[in-house]
């Protein structure tokens, strides 16, 4: 056996500036994430330019040299190819292919159900915030202009895991219909529970029982809006972001009035709220996960929102 073919290729150690340029570009892009999108762009340009040059440099020896003039193939080559029979299948080859093919088919058949079982149930509709109907109690319990920390259970069979908190304020009537501002406490940054920036009055806490669901109200005065303890996101009393990392306003709950009671009927996302209270003009969007942009140029990063 001729061993000469198996000698590992020589890796020429040539000092190259291209990797350093790519590293500078990466550093620039990362700094830009904190400072400005323009610097990210400059970093990306540097990465692409130096990366291309690097790849060009590295593959210089591998690229086919431009052929001068391809002569006619040697006669011997033709004969050899014909003798082997490129498309002729031997018995051994057929059995190998059948074994591999059958093995692959059996493997696929037994693998697909578990994968589907693990991967698809999370996308079943109606298990999230969207299709709920939670009784929050009679309208007479709500005083105009007062904020209530309202704790309720979305789905009692789940137990404490399904406890949720919303900030509820009765805004008085709008065109004959009672108007409420109901803000979810799920931070629009990464989902921590936002807190009211102001005094609570736990001694005035009261509860309301609707079947198996227990609703707890605690009056609160969120004079400084709402704030998140995890990473410092701040919102005003309408849920608009005022500071920190959140990408949009706080989510809100849709509601309906039935039999003189306030009922929550699912949450939606909000990009911005104009005005306050019952006169607020709310930019409604389909409920999105925390941290997901729903407007602006970044929304192209999230074209699909899974059902909830």
């Amino acid at each position, binding site marked *: 056996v001729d061993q000469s073919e198996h000698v590992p290729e020589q890796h020429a150690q040539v000092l190259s500036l291209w990797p350093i340029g790519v590293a500078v570009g990466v550093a620039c892009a990362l700094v830009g994430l904190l400072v400005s999108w323009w610097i990210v762009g400059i970093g990306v340009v540097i990465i692409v330019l130096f990366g291309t040059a690097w790849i060009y440099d590295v593959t210089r020896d591998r690229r086919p040299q431009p052929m001068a003039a391809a002569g006619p193939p040697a006669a011997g080559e033709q004969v050899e190819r014909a003798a082997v029979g490129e498309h002729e299948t031997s018995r051994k080859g057929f059995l190998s292919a059948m074994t591999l093919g059958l093995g692959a088919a059996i493997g696929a058949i037994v693998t697909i159900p578990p994968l589907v079982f693990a991967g698809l149930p999370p996308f079943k509709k109606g*298990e999230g915030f969207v299709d709920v109907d939670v009784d929050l109690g009679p309208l007479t319990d709500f005083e105009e202009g007062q904020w209530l920390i309202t704790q309720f259970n979305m789905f009692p069979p789940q137990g404490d895991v399904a406890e949720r908190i919303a900030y509820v304020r009765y805004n008085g009537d709008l065109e004959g219909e009672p108007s409420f501002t109901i803000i979810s406490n799920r931070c629009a940054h990464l989902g921590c529970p936002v807190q009211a920036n102001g005094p609570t009055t736990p001694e005035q806490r009261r509860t309301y029982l609707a079947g198996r669901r227990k609703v707890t109200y605690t009056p609160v005065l969120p004079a400084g809006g709402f704030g998140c303890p995890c990473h410092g996101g701040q919102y005003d009393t309408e849920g608009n972001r005022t500071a920190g990392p959140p990408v949009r306003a706080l989510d809100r709950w849709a509601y309906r009035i039935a039999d003189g009671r306030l009922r929550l009927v699912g949450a939606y996302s909000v990009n911005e709220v104009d005005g306050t209270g019952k006169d607020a003009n709310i930019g409604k969007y389909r409920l999105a996960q925390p941290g997901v942009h729903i407007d602006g140029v970044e929304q192209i990063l999230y074209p*699909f929102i899974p059902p909830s």
Partner: protein
Amino acid sequence: MPKSERRRQVESVVTYPLDWIEERTGWVGAVKYFLFRKVPGRTNWFHTLGSATLTAFLVQAITGVILAMYYQPHPDQAYESIQFITNDLTWGWLVRGMHRFGASVFIILMFFHMARVFLFGAYKYPREVNWMVGAALLILGMFEGFTGYLLPWDQTSYWASVVGINITGTGPFVGPFLANILKAGAEIDANTLSRFYSIHMLVLPAAIAGLIILHLWLVIRLGVSNPPWGPQPEEMDEDDEAPAREGLVQPVPRSNGK
């Protein structure tokens, strides 16, 4: 010095069962092949970081198996079962502490091991694939940490997992879908806890164990790399070659047939 009759008897008693196994399985030879390898001269304690990481993983595996005997992956019982393990079971605090702090030790040792390999240039040809396998092990190890953090089901672990899952959810295009797969639905609930538990104690340990075998096999196949201060090829002479170690087994001549 000629061996005494007594010594030969003792040796044959020791080697006979080993030879019996070796003849039928080749396992003794395999163990010898694994343990008695040539290593470059002037290796030092830095070369033990990989073994230390492996030890940390084995500690995690063993303590984890024991913890799984008492832990209840359900929102109503998870926290209580952790309290039970910690406060009531004999030495439960110790085993849980080993698992909990051993997790940090495992991650820290992986980073030290990676730093050693990087700074010694041991990732270079022909060991690039082993670096890639190691990188996969690092990612799986971090994922072990992430999934294990939810299991105590206290406020810290719950909200840390909320944040971690939502960070996943901000990934472009597929992020929201990955987050739903992690959560086993649109909201964090009992299914999330059992999913994390299953991933933490079945999926990832199996994957890590498989990759560790691959990692070790490549170490054995390619050998330990020469440290930067070791002898350079042009300086090496015959004396630098470590002598082959004497074997564990002394083959007993056997007659053909019965």
